[in-house]
């Protein structure tokens, strides 16, 4: 039996597809989600309306969504930076935890210092911890050719256990000694809290601006520098890169470290801008790292678009978790995120191919 459709390679890729594909993907994912909802006896219109209302309608909703969007912008950049070189770093989750651990440690230690100093120190500590943690993956990949997908994922589980150890199963520096019965992280110094800026009633976290700066920096790095050019060559053809004398191993390690640093910065933002302490359960339940992959894929690995998409997915995620209850079952958020990733990856083929209907050739006539 012949399949009813056939794919034909596009000779040139029209520009308008670059923004049309993510939009089409998003709409397609919502339609598929509606089918899941209908099949399980829920009213999709009602569900989507409430997500929109809670995530995007009004200044309060938007302020809340930006809180979720900010870490997602960082983990999205983390995924995009590595994926662009063909390195599948799915360890953004663990790298973000490690960044949060580093930033919280600095935030607690620098009690009494001026805010500016603490904010910068927390950012640097978060980036450093995230970068070092991701560098493990990079070194193993560069030196031993170990599959980075699995190692980066295993490190997520290890980081999660480490986080539980720090807050729940030990009397570590990060744990609030006052919390005996309900273990919690130790709050960072009051003056270490990061600012919010208000525009037209919407509270925009400082870290969101840092995310925009990071996105621009990554964009410039990849488009305008020698390093970015080399990354592009390695992504297209590792063999050609070797012949051209590009040091593939050190580039692998550097790209993963950069990727981890971005996720770590997200962890620092979570501690400094939002929770003011190392919140083990809170981080583990948010799953920013995994959602970041969805963000990066939908943004087609473009750093600037990643920040925009982070706001969209952030709103959806924020609303989904906020609405959770009897008639809004948990699990819906992940289901929708997964569907978006399906349609995003399927959307890629629309860039490469044209879909054509296979005409049936009746052999009798042909003969």
């Amino acid at each position: 039996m012949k399949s009813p459709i056939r794919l034909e390679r596009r000779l040139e890729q029209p520009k308008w597809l670059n923004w049309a594909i993510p939009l089409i993907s998003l709409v397609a994912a919502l339609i598929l989600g509606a089918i899941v909802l209908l099949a399980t006896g829920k009213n999709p219109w009602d569900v989507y309306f409430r997500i929109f209302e809670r995530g995007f309608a009004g200044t309060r909703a938007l302020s809340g969504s930006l809180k979720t969007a900010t870490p997602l912008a960082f983990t999205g950049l983390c995924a995009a930076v590595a994926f662009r070189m063909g390195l599948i770093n799915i360890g953004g989750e663990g790298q973000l935890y490690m960044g949060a651990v580093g930033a919280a440690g600095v935030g607690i230690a620098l009690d009494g210092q001026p805010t500016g100093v603490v904010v910068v120190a927390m950012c640097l500590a978060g980036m450093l911890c995230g970068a070092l943690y991701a560098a493990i993956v990079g070194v193993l990949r560069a030196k031993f050719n170990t599959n980075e997908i699995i190692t980066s994922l295993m490190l997520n589980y290890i980081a999660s256990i480490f986080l539980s150890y720090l807050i729940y199963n030990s009397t570590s520096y990060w744990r609030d000694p006052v919390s005996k019965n309900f273990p919690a992280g130790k709050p960072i110094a009051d003056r270490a809290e990061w600012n919010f800026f208000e525009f037209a009633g919407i509270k925009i976290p400082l870290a969101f601006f840092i995310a925009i700066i990071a996105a621009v920096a990554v964009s410039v790095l990849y488009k305008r520098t020698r390093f970015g050019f080399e990354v592009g060559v390695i992504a297209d053809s590792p063999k050609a890169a070797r012949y051209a004398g590009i040091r593939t191993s050190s580039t692998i390690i550097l790209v993963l470290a950069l990727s981890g640093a971005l996720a770590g910065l997200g962890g620092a933002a979570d501690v400094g801008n939002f929770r003011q302490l190392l919140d083990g359960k809170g981080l583990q339940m948010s799953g920013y790292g995994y959602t970041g992959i969805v963000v990066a894929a939908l943004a087609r690995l473009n750093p600037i678009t990643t920040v925009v998409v982070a706001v969209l997915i952030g709103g959806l995620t924020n609303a989904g978790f906020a609405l959770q209850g009897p008639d809004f079952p948990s699990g819906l958020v992940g289901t929708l995120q997964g569907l978006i990733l399906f349609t995003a990856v399927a959307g890629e083929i629309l860039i490469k191919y044209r879909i054509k209907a296979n005409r049936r050739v009746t052999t009798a006539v042909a003969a």
Partner: protein
Amino acid sequence: MNSNILIIIIASAIFYGTPLFFAALGGIFTERSGVLNLGVEGTMLLGGVSGAWASQHVGGSAWFTVLMSIVIGMIAGGITSALLAFLCVTLKTNQTVAGLAITIFAGAVGLSSYFANIWGVAENPVPRQIRRLDVFGLADTPIVGPIIFNQTILTYVSWVLAVLSTVYLFRTRIGLQLRAVGESPQTADAMGISVVKYRYVHTILGGALAGIGGVFYSLAIVPTWVDGMTKGAGWIAIALVIFGFWRPSLTLLGAYLFGALQSLGSTLKARGVNISGDILDALPFVMTIVVLVLVSSRFAHRKLGAPAALGVPYEREER
């Protein structure tokens, strides 16, 4: 500490290793056909929640209910993987991202949790479970009793499957053709083998086996439904395929090694050994990295490497 504790560790290594082996065996079939399934974790969870639902709702004798739970878990896993096959084989998408999409879609905060909620699976216990058997009444025999004669039915099935799948892959014509599809789809295609059909069938088969692994979690190990209960077992299974060099027999040994690591915590704690639970919890994940590094050496790859076309969508040259 005496020889007793060693026997308990071996017996529980086999128990905990069983779902790992089912999922990894599924991975072998899928990857041998040239498709990389990174959605094993999500596939296992959907199998697990469907199996738990069946255990709560299918009537009849206990054996029938358990059998139906396994079958329904397989169907759920098969459907999940059919989705992956559609993306990877028909639409020729990036297999890595497609697999991740399956895991996010079906995973701990995805569809498996959604189903558990709307079906009320988590609120109730799983009444009919996969229990350890007392084969030939020999379970109390010293040493071999707990290790060999006191396992679940699925463990015995897995031993039979290990043998059958080795024969299938290396001693039958279809197995040879399957390997050809994974090594060089162009050649296979030229020989008149349908690459698409082989990839679909073995990806779906792989998902069904991962589904059994999930059912083992919800009906035997825990045994009740908890969101995200496989806790990374699907990912360890993917790594096991690599440790086992795409061979069922070696993978079975690897599964028991990791089964031992997973069960070590509860075994030692029950024995009153004082050791940090966190370190034991992290052990399987650390070991996965260590062993992966060991097997990714160049020598091992040349001798026993991955199917050459693994992860590469097959495109027939257009005429």
